């Protein structure tokens, strides 16, 4: 075993909590500041898997010898599910730890203000997980990039899925299908709901009810009553973890019935947690998310990508002892991997380093075709001047369905691994 490799392992181990840099090896370093919610409601809403997988990516790269002779030194910070803490941590990482790149960020509520701040300070930020379109839309950000899908696409995916399946499954014209849009009222929920509303309207799907609520609500029974009154066929829900649990529990208690529920990431990406709480009740639920990498057929992807996925899944399972690797793990890992294997090497080689300007140029040159990443999509960023500049234009989510604890892909048709079950079969807790 070579010496510096063990040092890197030790560094990575300490890195989880440490802000100290290792002086031992006189080697060039690149400092990353990675912010996730390790505690609080967002932690259970998907932030933790993303954080773990992000760290796996960093560890793997370091084990391979780093990037262009540079060791990756990551400082991980906890935003505690609070935006003001996230902002303060960003300040600290950028200006006290003096990281070269700010990364991570689960919640869009943190992402939006933080991205604007980092950009204004002309520092470089790479967003792994947060999806709100509002991060980029109309902001003309220069130094913030996100290969991840964005919330408008989430909203559109579910409506498209409904429109395509209404006739065959629900025996109704899409115009006769009614949906209810529920969302946590942060940038993420609001963004997805706006996408839902716009797309469903465009497709002629009726919106029986649309309502936002605070993710920290302790009582959603009034909302449930309104849904029972509005009688939607399909519920489009966007939320984090405690609020989803609360909603499902109160909906069941109040006898709310519907044909299908489509969740949009975050809490719905954590199927393990939902099954733990609700057992069979969450069977046949849908979730819109970037795909969990292990679900894709490696043959459809670029050569070598499948091996990376396999390695990530192996390490993730070893670390967390879970059976199902959630989509958030893939998101955290994938974006990290793209940065470390595509953008960063190019910046160092071609643009002479990893200052924000070099990273920016390298990012703008990114051109990964579809199938080139573990989540299937390719990467090319909208150029400056575009209203979404900095956002990946090639990303796309999928609609997944949970069937008996196994995740299947139900949409788009070309990736499909299941004929969607719609409506709920008789005897289901929420079946009409």
């Amino acid at each position, binding site marked *: 075993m070579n010496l510096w490799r063990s040092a890197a392992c030790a560094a990575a181990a*300490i890195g989880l*909590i*440490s*802000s*100290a840099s290792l002086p031992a090896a006189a080697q060039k370093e690149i400092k990353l500041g990675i912010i996730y919610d390790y*505690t609080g409601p967002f932690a259970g809403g998907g932030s933790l898997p993303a954080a773990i997988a992000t760290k796996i990516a960093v560890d793997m790269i370091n084990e391979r010898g780093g990037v262009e002779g540079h060791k990756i030194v990551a400082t991980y*910070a*906890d935003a*505690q599910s*609070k*935006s*003001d*803490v996230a*902002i*303060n941590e960003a*300040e*600290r990482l*950028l*200006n*006290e730890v*003096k990281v070269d790149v700010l990364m991570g960020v689960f*919640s869009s*509520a943190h992402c*939006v*203000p933080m991205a*604007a*701040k980092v*950009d*204004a*300070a*002309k520092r470089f930020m790479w967003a792994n997980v947060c999806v709100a379109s509002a991060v980029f839309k109309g*902001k003309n950000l220069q130094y913030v990039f996100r290969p991840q899908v964005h919330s408008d696409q989430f909203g559109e995916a579910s409506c498209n899925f409904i429109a395509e399946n209404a006739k065959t499954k629900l025996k109704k014209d899409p115009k006769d299908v009614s949906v209810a849009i529920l969302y*946590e*009222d*942060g*940038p993420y929920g*609001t963004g997805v709901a706006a996408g839902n509303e716009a797309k469903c309207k465009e497709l002629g799907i009726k919106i029986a009810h649309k309502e*936002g609520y*605070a*993710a*920290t609500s302790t009582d959603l029974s009034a909302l449930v009553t309104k849904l029972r009154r509005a009688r939607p066929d399909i519920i489009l829900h966007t939320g984090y973890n405690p609020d989803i649990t609360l909603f499902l529990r109160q909906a069941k208690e109040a006898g709310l019935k519907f044909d299908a529920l489509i969740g949009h990431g975050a809490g719905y990406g954590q199927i393990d947690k939902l099954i733990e709480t609700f057992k069979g009740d969450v069977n046949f639920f849908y979730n819109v998310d970037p795909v969990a990498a292990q679900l894709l057929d490696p043959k459809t992807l670029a050569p070598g990508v499948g091996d990376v996925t396999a390695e990530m899944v192996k390490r993730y399972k070893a670390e967390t002892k879970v059976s199902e690797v959630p989509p958030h793990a893939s998101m955290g890992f994938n974006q990290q991997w793209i940065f470390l294997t595509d953008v960063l090497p190019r910046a160092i080689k071609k643009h002479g380093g990893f200052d924000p300007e070099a990273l920016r140029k390298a990012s703008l040159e990114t051109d990964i075709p579809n199938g080139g990443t573990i989540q299937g999509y390719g990467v090319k960023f909208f150029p400056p001047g575009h209203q979404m500049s900095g956002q990946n234009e090639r990303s796309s989510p999928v609609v997944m369905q949970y069937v008996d604890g196994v995740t299947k892909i139900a949409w788009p048709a070309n990736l499909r691994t299941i004929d969607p079950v719609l409506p709920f079969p008789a005897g289901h807790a929420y079946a009409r």
Partner: protein
Amino acid sequence: MITQKHIAGAIGLVVLLLLPVLIKLIFPGTDRYYLHLVIQILIWAFIYTGWSLMGRFGLTSLGHGAFTGIGAYVTVLLWNFAGITPWIGIPVAMVVATIAGVLVGYPCFRLRITGHYFALLTLAFTEFVRLCIVGLRDWTGGSLGTQPARYGDGLSLYAFQFEPNRVLAYYIVLAVWLIGLAIWIKVDRSMDRYALDAASQDEDAAASVGINVTREKLKITALSSAMCAFGGAIYGQYQMYIGPDTIAGLGVSLNIVFAVIAGGIWSLFGPTFGAVFTQVLAETLRVGLRGSETLSKILGQSALALDTFIYGLLLVLFIIYMPKGVVGTLAERWKRKAGS
């Protein structure tokens, strides 16, 4: 006459004016972060000073979280939705907060709602405002907050966005804080201060010597709520993020009250000390505990709330053993020493 006090003040002022340079010397390279901490402390110190104007006269309002919230949100909403520059938005927000303060204050003072009734009533007001902010989610961004729309590259006089230039931000906030202290001193030296002191002790006796107690209280309420609204607006402009839990609501109110009480409600620098104390404690514990492997191993997640824990414990102890606060108690001790 130049007293020791004046000299100390002058030296302090020079130090503060040179602080960005000093910080750069002491923490080369990381000055932005430390300036950020200082700026946050100064903004809160200003808000705390604004509250203490009222609080020191027994008007223990738990409603100032509403005023900071109104200040921040009105300014940002006017900017985001009507394109009105904060130069107009902030005064408007201050007027709105003042009106709100007077609307709540007038019946309270007329009906002599004081003590814990006043506290509970203003508490209801704070919650009302916070719920309105959350409820108007289509405008305010709901429970997770919103941010002022960036103007240009984020440094703009017109949009009153000064955050990217830390040094500039520091001087702006320093000026705000100094204005806060000046207002405190002005109030402290006015006859109204005596009137309010008297009224806080005995309203009947105060009225009997001709003091219009209701009017005096309304005046200070208006001033205090306007100041807190201003502070809230500055916070929003600097932080470029406002959330119902970070700048409005009961949590903010309680923080204000407790920081001031810990620092000392009757002293000029009491509220500022409270701000230094609470902000530094929170930041050091958060960073320090996360940064130290052994400590976070021992405490694990507990480290999260250790600052609040210490904070709560100290508050209880302060109120029991040091009701005048740190600065107040030290000043008294010093005075006693000087006297004897």
